[in-house]
């Protein structure tokens, strides 16, 4: 991939007006939001945050125990979020983190109070609307002791060909016995450059579950979230389902560092290319025992494209149990024939197998998001065979 030239994007001057009622947004944008898992009616959600271009335009939560605000407000209110802000991601990591450190446009701060179990997910959306926008966001999520939360984040552009750069820092804090499910749906476009930088820490008995879905063309995406299990009994799971249509370039991975005994980590990715490139990384490191980690990386090449699976395991003490399974290939003829023997023609059989491969049931998503994902799969099937 050629180097990203940030000077091509405008990091100032794209202020947007507040949007009181998201249902008043233009129809085309609403549809892109729905396909990113964001429900503009807010039904079945504990809160909604929307940022367009350079600022937050909508932020509301009616859920007791859930605090949600623009990161800039949180920095003022909580004295720079000392002990949290920039502790999980190094601001000097690369030019993208530096760009956000120098000039943060927004992002969300979400905190769940101790012991509060939030039933309905909180949703957030980061939207690039104006052509050539460079968007710098910084998100901080704190789930206090014994609390639980599901966040659905949709990232998208106003139109599939909107040119934009999204630089996003996310820092997650899962306290003792707390749990965070973070579902991210990427619905970028053929001119989107995307550089998320994500880090998080899970304390004793905490659970972090990350779901990541990206099925549309994205020009250039690179991300490698890292979660550190810092307390005994911590669990981290990453589930990714990625499709790379022609013109897409995704360099993605997940990393789990097991820095305490009795920890478990799991990274599962299913990738399909129909012409694009996917680099599917995964890294599990275990520095304490007992620690069990499993990495599963499966890729299908349908037609053209490249899948490069790079699973890594690193154990530094005796007794760690780490394993991985990686496969890049095609749909097994045996599976197609089996379904044909049940009366499905070749196309039906292929499509059934692909849908199974991309099945996201394991993520436990709300029905409408699940439907949106199924619809996206249906739409991309025409590229597949």
């Amino acid at each position, binding site marked *: 991939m050629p180097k990203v030239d940030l000077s091509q994007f405008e990091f100032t001057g794209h202020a947007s007006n507040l949007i009181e009622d998201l249902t008043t947004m233009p129809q085309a944008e609403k549809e892109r939001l729905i396909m990113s898992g964001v429900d503009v009616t807010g039904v079945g959600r504990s809160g909604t945050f929307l940022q367009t271009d350079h600022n937050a335009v909508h932020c509301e939560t009616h859920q007791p125990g859930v605090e949600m605000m623009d990161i800039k407000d949180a920095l003022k209110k909580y004295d720079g979020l000392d002990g949290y802000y920039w502790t999980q991601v190094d601001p000097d990591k690369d030019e993208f983190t530096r760009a956000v450190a120098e000039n943060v446009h927004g992002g969300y701060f979400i905190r769940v109070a101790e012991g509060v179990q939030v039933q309905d997910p909180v949703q957030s959306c980061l939207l690039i609307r104006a052509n050539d926008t460079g968007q710098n966001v910084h998100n901080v999520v704190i789930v206090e002791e014994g609390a639980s939360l599901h966040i659905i984040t949709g990232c998208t552009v106003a139109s599939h060909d909107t040119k934009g750069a999204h630089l996003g820092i996310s820092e997650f804090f899962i306290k003792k016995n707390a749990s965070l499910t973070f579902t991210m749906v990427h619905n970028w476009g053929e001119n989107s450059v995307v550089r998320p930088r994500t880090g998080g820490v899970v304390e004793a008995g905490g659970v972090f579950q990350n779901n990541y879905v990206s099925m549309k063309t994205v020009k250039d995406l690179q991300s490698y979230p890292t979660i550190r299990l810092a307390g005994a009994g911590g669990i981290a799971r990453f589930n990714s389902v990625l499709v790379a249509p022609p013109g897409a370039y995704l360099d993605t991975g997940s990393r789990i560092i097991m820095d305490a005994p009795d920890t478990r980590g799991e990274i599962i990715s299913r990738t399909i290319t129909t012409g694009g490139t996917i680099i599917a990384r995964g890294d599990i490191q275990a520095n304490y025992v007992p620690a069990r980690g499993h990495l599963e990386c499966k890729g299908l090449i349908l037609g053209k494209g490249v899948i490069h699976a790079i699973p890594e395991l690193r154990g530094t003490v005796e007794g760690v149990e780490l394993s991985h399974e990686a496969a890049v290939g095609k749909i097994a003829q*045996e599976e197609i024939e089996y379904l*044909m*023997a*049940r009366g499905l023609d*070749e196309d*039906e059989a292929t499509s*059934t197998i692909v849908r*199974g491969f991309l099945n996201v049931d394991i993520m436990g998503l709300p029905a409408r998001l699940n439907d949106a994902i199924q619809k996206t799969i249906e739409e991309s099937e025409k590229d597949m065979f």
Partner: protein
Amino acid sequence: MLKIENLHVKIGQREVLTGIDLEINAGETYILFGPNGSGKTTLLMTLMGLGNYEVTGGKIWFKGHDITEMPTYERARLGVGMSFQRPPTIHGLSTKHLVRMAAQGRDFDVESMARKVNMESFLDRDVNAGFSGGEIKRSELLQLMAQHPNLLLFDEPESGVDLENMHLIGKTVRTLLEGEIAPRPDCSMREQKEMRSSSGLIITHTGYILDYINADRGQVLYDGHLCCEARPRDILEHIRAHGYQECVRCLN
């Protein structure tokens, strides 16, 4: 129902079936015996039209259609149904969904049918994922019940099955072949039996399945040839007493 004429089949470079002739009538169940490696599974796979099995000569007729070159799914839709011995796992596809698809739009109460073969707790599991030998057999039967084939191809229904499951599988195979026969005011059980239209081709080594079904004819497949046509029970006894060596003599 099924007519096979001088069928030759190659796997890779090797000719495994070297001229098979066989006719199975409507409502008739045919039993196939034969030593390991003689080509029995090959014959079933070829009838289903699966890959790797290359027909190099001869014809297969089903319900009057020449199906020798027909794609697998068309054979299935025409009424050929096979129980796979080692079916693949399909991730992300629930057993329930596959059963529904196998019904091809026919009315089929998946839950209550699953109960009949003790599969109700498997319906939400991925197809064949971690199924034991006996569970695979029951899952295959459930799919075949949904498919409702006119010709049932079954490769070793007994293998890897405990006694209780053998009973369940035997009864289910009988129902698949003969339909549900029960006292009815409008039709005697004997008439019901005569109306049955499903035929079967079943491979067995042990013959346990014969306790459950009516099978009048059978043959031994030996080294790519069929021989020794007789009543299945007689063939079984003959093999038990004398082994397959006798078949060679009979061939010559």
